[in-house]
């Protein structure tokens, strides 16, 4: 199973970015800045300001990823899916929603916040903005390498009819009860395509062999190592 890494984008404590404009892999511990509309989209976007923080972080990283791949603009909808892994999902939004629900026994429950208490809502935001008609899902999975969404995406590419899948991770900083020094909050997505891009070179081909990911002939140990290798390959 093989896919071409055609784009990388992120919102992490290292900042906001596209792969081709950077040399350092961005997954790290630290303070996560929640992006504002102007930092992501040049044009007005009424909905962005209404999004919860989880959705803003995830949507922005997807936007940067597609921009990096040169596929942000579109005329016709495309069979591109999104697979996002998340440990906490929209837990912070759930808590914010509960803070509108509990004080007045439901009288002041926020319909706008409720709409984002599904972890996959931001994928819908991305799908409608970028015309993505593929399979879109969030999966919750306890693993530390953050490679599971890439494996999932490569299998989907092999087994289904999608031309590409945006795969990655999205998490806000952990609630105090769960936080640890090893947390790398934020969002990072790669665009995995069946074909290499037109007009620019791919970062390289990512393969899934016997359950292991291989990039440029070398085994991949975790997502940060993969991104570091991609950014090195690009330079």
């Amino acid at each position, binding site marked *: 199973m093989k896919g071409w890494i055609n784009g990388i984008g992120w919102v992490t404590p290292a900042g906001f970015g596209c792969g081709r404009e950077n040399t350092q892999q961005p997954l790290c511990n630290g303070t996560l800045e929640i992006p504002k509309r102007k930092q992501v989209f040049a044009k007005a976007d009424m909905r962005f300001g209404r999004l919860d923080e989880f959705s803003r972080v995830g949507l922005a990283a997807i936007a940067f990823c597609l921009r990096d791949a040169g596929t942000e603009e579109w005329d016709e909808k495309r069979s591109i899916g999104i697979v996002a892994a998340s440990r906490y999902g929209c837990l912070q939004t759930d*808590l914010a929603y509960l803070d509108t*629900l509990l004080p007045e026994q439901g*009288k002041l429950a926020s319909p706008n916040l409720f709409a984002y208490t599904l972890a996959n809502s931001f994928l*819908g935001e991305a799908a409608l903005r970028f015309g993505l*008609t593929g399979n879109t899902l969030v999966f*919750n999975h306890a693993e530390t390498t953050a490679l599971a969404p890439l494996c999932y995406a490569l299998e989907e590419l092999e087994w289904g009819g999608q031309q590409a899948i945006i795969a990655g991770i999205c998490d806000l900083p952990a*609630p105090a009860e769960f936080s640890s020094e090893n947390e790398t909050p934020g969002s990072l997505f790669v665009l995995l395509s069946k074909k290499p891009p037109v007009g620019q070179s791919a970062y390289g081909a990512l393969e899934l062999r016997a359950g292991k990911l291989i990039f440029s002939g070398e085994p991949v140990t975790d997502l940060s190592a993969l991104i570091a290798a991609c950014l090195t390959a690009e330079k």
Partner: protein
Amino acid sequence: MMRVVISRAATVTALGDGLDSLWDGLMAGQTGIAPFDRFSSDNYISDYAACIENLAAPPGTSLLDPLLERVATQIGALPADCRFLVASTKGEVDLLTQVRREEQQLPDAVLFEALIEKIAKRFSLKTTGYNINAACASSTLAVARAAAMISAGVADAVLVYAADLVSEFVFSGFSALQALSDQPCRPFDSQRNGLTLGEAGVALLLTSEKYADQQNEKPLAVVAGWGVANDAHHVTAPARDGCGLILACQQALEKADIDPSAVAAINAHGTGTIYNDAMELTAFNKIFGDFLPPLHGVKGSLGHCLGAAGGVEIAVACRALQEQQIPGTIGCKNPEAAAQGQISESPQPISGDYLLCSNSGFGGINATVILQGVTS
């Protein structure tokens, strides 16, 4: 490619424990929707839900625990190498609400990884699973994923476990969105005005046909095709032209390698909201033209069971193919004209090998599974 079958199904719904009880209730036209007292509905636009009878948990724990137990006792011992997928939109959200109300620290149990571990332990599964969150299409999508894994030969057996609760969290949200009906929901009725929430736990064991043979399993149905697509239209509203559902159905038909005319019946999502049901009828009319097969929805009996809805409906569809009948659509007294006379409050006979199940959800997601009867 391996042929994939559903070997076992276990359900717990407002119509009782087990597929027999569920099927009998549906065919008898029963409904589990009733006024409830799990929490106060004084400030919400409805006081109806389809709650599971005698579902109770000690303080500090979730109702998902006894629900898991009641499903697990039905499904029996699983193959040692069985993989598993969980499909839940909100997990232990009742516990999350409780601890937030009491201003306690969040326990690990509110994270999906804890729920996944609990499910693995209860089913004695040694493999690593994950939770699929695709809103109200979660379990349909999980069945599609399980079928793809088995079909590609990366797994012999996959358990799909799906569960969601009637919780104040979700109830208040749908109320705030004005999406709840003030009366029991009326899927596909011309006077429908919203959904009614329900809850369920369901387990489906999918295996390769060969593996089922080797293990002396008696398959309930073949998973012949599946498809998943996004509307790319809106986060909470379906695309009025049904574009995503049409795409998902076309993928499933292609995978099953059948023409639409081979589909004997449809188990539709049928939430009872104005826009969802209209969208579905638009999509089905586009796919089937003037020859829409008999269709039905179960949410007038079971309420909308969120992430578990698709799993329950696929279990019902297995039985429908065996019995060559579909249950009536409770609450549908005056069907929409676009249903072409193919929907009824009473059970309908069907004739054929294939049944199409579909679910759609927030985030614009649509998932379709086509089942084939095992006798063919």
